[in-house]
């Protein structure tokens, strides 16, 4: 009991890759000592609040802040006139016209909650009072909340774009019309996957401080992408990158919601400048979090496909209409991902799906864990089961007939190298006893269903490169620092990257400390999204550790008058590679390196940018990822026909993750994804009132999975050892969320013969569908 974690695990700390090392920040977390942006406090710190639009759509006629400014305790008020009116957005590189949001809007507001200014005061009470004293004159405009309405001619025009369609994304390959004519069975289905919210427990929070003597600004942030945040701050504040420091604190969950600079981040900085350099903290309430952060796109998915009798999938066509909300954010690329993921899964030659991202006067849709793939996964994987049924084929057999294989190039030029999809399916069905159960438990109202998914490790979707940098610094006493730009948002990347650094350097994990995501200290990293960190930042870390090791071995080689290639460091020892003989300890080698004859500082650097080809959005072609991850998921359910409740008996997830750097952590990612998938399947549905305000924007009404009823989950790691991955690893933070809803919907169909095409799956929908089925069967008689 008295052992510390470090002592307890010490022996196992050598060769850490592939072992469940304890979280590097574990003690900080369990003692409450680790600091989130939420916990950053300074003397004389001011409280900032955003001035928000009460209207869904309106022209700003005038803003009078004089009364608020005169209120005792108010230190600064800012509006658009204090800014340079520079727009920012997230798809600037590929879709420049979608850069559509101002740090503070000056002419128009486009949703209830839209930011037009901010106040800073000595305390929250004064700041809230100041908000009431801001006098804004609006000319209210007609608004539109439903994307299908917004697309109709004559609908209120939210931005400049025609019919409120911000982006049309046509993805065409082959000749689907001709191919469909050759199909033995064709069906068309409509699915709807609603908006949802990331609902990270830590709300958006930041502290901004302007250094008036140097004109530098620091932002303590809860961010998944501190360098992207810095870029947007520098752009909108018209500063150089090295004038802006973003310090990522411990992050209390992100899930896509903390990828971008928000007006609050900009405002905290500018308010501090106006307040003479006093730090300003802005912390969202839960209500603001639902209103004015980011959310998942609600998607209408129409899909029509044809198959041959033997199960060959010949063509897919369809249409995706996504509710984008008031601004574009990451929307265009989310739509692309919602369409193109299918190429990683199924060998398909004829394809035409067009995506529409539509503006509405509602909160802004952005990237949420799964990046469009969750909505698409529900639609496509449900549809695939329906196709299989149409030709009387087992859903697993149907998938095995059509799935992608290792070492193939997809129709849109994605290069799939290692591909464990078949192994995932095989292992999942074996473990779940598919053949014994599928179609055979209807008498118990029990059923089993499958869904498959694939994911990228990065995507080059926000700039021309997707680089990550790492520095490994070895101190004189043998302790090691890893500096990485990657943002640990709770997934444990600091731990995994530290394991990777120690493994490559050849030392024990107990030697390392990790500093991540501080734009003034750590190298650049694109950010934590697209399941990219283990793969891309991991590769940068391997290179940095290798460089540091080379610097140490150079000294050893000189000292022993041998070639550097003769040596390696493994398990804390310098060894002779040829003879495998022990040469000296790591500590001894380091002592040599730092001794006066050599006197070298050991500072290794690594930079990695995957050799990929960005998607050409005119053709849909591109190889976006350096490697691809795969999985198969199975759900077993029992449906209560009386009350419509669905009980999950068990979930299985077999996952090609290349190599588990930290098996426990990898399992945690899968279990967490499954829980989020369960939430989206059964309860999460962020919906809006007639004016576009969230109708359930709090934890009382937006229901999340809780501990009661958590089903058993079995995770099966499939290790394909990708040659491009660090120690063979792939990314895996998102994929397990993609097929959950479909696997469950398919299981429900297997159990009671009803097909739910609109999420969430509620008892009411089950009862209604059962009733309809019963009526249909009666009519047949």
């Amino acid at each position, binding site marked *: *009991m008295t052992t510390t974690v470090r002592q307890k695990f010490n022996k196992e700390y050598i060769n850490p890759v592939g072992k469940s090392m304890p979280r590097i920040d574990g003690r900080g977390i369990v003692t409450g000592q680790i600091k989130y942006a939420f916990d950053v406090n300074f003397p004389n710190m001011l409280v900032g609040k955003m001035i928000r639009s009460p209207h869904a759509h309106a022209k700003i006629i005038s803003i009078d802040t004089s009364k608020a400014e005169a209120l005792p305790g108010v230190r600064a008020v800012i509006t658009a006139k204090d800014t340079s009116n520079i727009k920012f957005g997230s798809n600037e590189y590929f879709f420049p016209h979608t850069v559509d949001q101002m740090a503070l809007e000056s002419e128009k507001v486009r949703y209830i909650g839209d930011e037009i200014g901010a106040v800073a005061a000595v305390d929250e009470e004064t700041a809230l009072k100041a908000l009431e004293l801001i006098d804004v004159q609006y000319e209210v405009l007609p608004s539109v909340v439903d994307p299908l309405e917004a697309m109709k001619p004559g609908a209120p025009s939210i931005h400049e774009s025609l019919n409120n369609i911000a982006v049309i994304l046509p993805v065409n390959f082959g000749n689907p019309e001709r191919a469909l004519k050759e199909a033995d069975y064709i069906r068309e289905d409509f699915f709807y996957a609603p908006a949802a919210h990331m609902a*990270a427990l830590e709300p958006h929070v930041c502290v901004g401080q302007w250094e008036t003597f140097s004109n530098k600004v620091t932002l303590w942030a809860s961010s998944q992408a501190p360098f992207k945040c810095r870029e947007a701050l520098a752009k909108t504040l018209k500063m150089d990158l090295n004038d802006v420091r973003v310090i990522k604190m411990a992050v209390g969950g992100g899930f896509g919601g903390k990828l971008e600079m928000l007006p609050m981040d900009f405002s905290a900085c500018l308010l501090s400048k106006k307040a003479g350099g006093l730090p300003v903290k802005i912390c969202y309430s839960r209500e603001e979090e639902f209103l004015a952060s980011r959310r998942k796109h609600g998607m209408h998915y129409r899909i029509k496909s044809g198959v041959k009798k033997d199960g060959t999938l010949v063509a897919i066509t369809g249409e995706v209409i996504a509710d984008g909300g008031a601004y574009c954010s990451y929307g265009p690329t989310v739509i692309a991902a919602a369409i193109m993921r299918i190429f990683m899964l199924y060998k398909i030659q004829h394809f035409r799906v067009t995506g529409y991202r539509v503006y509405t006067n509602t909160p802004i849709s952005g990237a949420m864990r799964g990046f469009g793939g969750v909505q698409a996964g529900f639609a496509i994987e449900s549809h695939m089961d329906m196709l299989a049924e149409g030709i009387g084929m087992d859903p697993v057999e149907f998938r095995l007939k059509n799935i992608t294989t290792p070492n193939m190039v997809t129709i849109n030029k994605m290069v799939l190298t290692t591909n464990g999809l078949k192994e995932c399916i095989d292992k999942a069905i074996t473990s779940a006893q598919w053949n014994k159960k599928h179609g055979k438990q209807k008498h118990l109202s029990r059923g089993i269903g499958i869904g498959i998914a694939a994911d990228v490790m990065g995507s080059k979707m926000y700039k021309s490169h997707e680089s990550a940098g790492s520095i490994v610094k070895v101190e004189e006493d043998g302790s090691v620092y890893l500096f990485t730009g990657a943002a640990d948002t709770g*997934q444990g990347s600091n731990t995994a990257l530290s394991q990777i650094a120690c493994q490559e350097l050849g030392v024990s994990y107990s030697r390392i400390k990790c500093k991540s995501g501080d734009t003034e200290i750590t190298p650049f990293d694109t950010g934590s999204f697209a399941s990219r960190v283990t793969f891309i930042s991991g590769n940068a870390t391997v290179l940095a550790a290798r460089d540091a090791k080379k610097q140490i071995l150079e000294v050893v080689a000189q000292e022993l008058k041998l070639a550097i290639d003769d040596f390696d460091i493994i398990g804390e020892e310098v060894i002779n590679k040829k003879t495998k003989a022990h040469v000296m300890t790591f500590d001894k080698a380091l002592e040599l390196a730092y001794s006066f004859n050599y006197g070298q500082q050991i500072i290794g650097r690594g930079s990695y940018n995957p050799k990929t080809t960005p998607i050409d959005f005119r053709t849909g072609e591109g190889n976006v990822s350096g490697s691809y991850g795969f999985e198969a998921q199975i759900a077993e359910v029992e449906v209560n026909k009386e009350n419509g409740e669905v009980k999950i008996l068990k979930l299985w997830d077999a996952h090609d993750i290349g190599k588990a750097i930290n098996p426990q952590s990898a399992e*945690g990612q899968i279990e967490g994804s*499954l829980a989020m998938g369960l939430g989206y399947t059964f309860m999460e549905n962020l919906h809006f009132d007639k004016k576009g305000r969230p109708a359930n924007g709090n934890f009382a009404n937006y229901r999340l999975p809780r501990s009661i009823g958590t089903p058993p989950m079995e995770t099966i790691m499939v290790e394909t050892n990708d040659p491009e991955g660090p120690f063979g690893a792939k990314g895996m933070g998102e994929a397990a969320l993609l097929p959950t809803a479909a696997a469950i919907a398919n299981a429900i169909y297997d159990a009671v013969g009803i097909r739910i095409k609109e999420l969430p799956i509620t008892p009411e929908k089950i009862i209604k569908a059962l009733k309809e089925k019963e009526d249909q069967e009666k009519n047949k008689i």
Partner: protein
Amino acid sequence: MSKLIINKREYNVDLKGHETLLEVLRDNLSLTGTKTACEESECGTCTVIINGKAILSCITLASAVEGEEVTTIEGLANGDELHPIQHTFIDCGAVQCGFCIPGMIMSSKALLDQNPEPTQEEIEYALDGNICRCAGYLKIFDAVKEAGKMMKHDHHR
């Protein structure tokens, strides 16, 4: 001046009367280990222990707990020595972003202090007020069970 007993230490705090315990802990006493994610009693993130019971500090007036024994996450470890629950949360991989963890650990402690061998059902019930968005609960259940075993063992020793 009101006298608050937090983690067996006495604090004299000038209360106006309307402050919640959460505000006093975080803002007046700089005990920022206790978090909140909703400030309206829905998420469990602000859970502390008062007289042996798991209580939400966001809806508890500080003035109402004057003289009562309040334990926060900062009061669990004994110097460098972690409490068994803190150990097992690390060992079982129950922590991800960590924001729910202080509340989760306090709810677990209130349960295990009463019942070191809880059933699966009892654990789920005791933690149902604590939302975790990252981890999906299974590893948290493991951590609670393991901690219970350690606590029972320590007790008998």
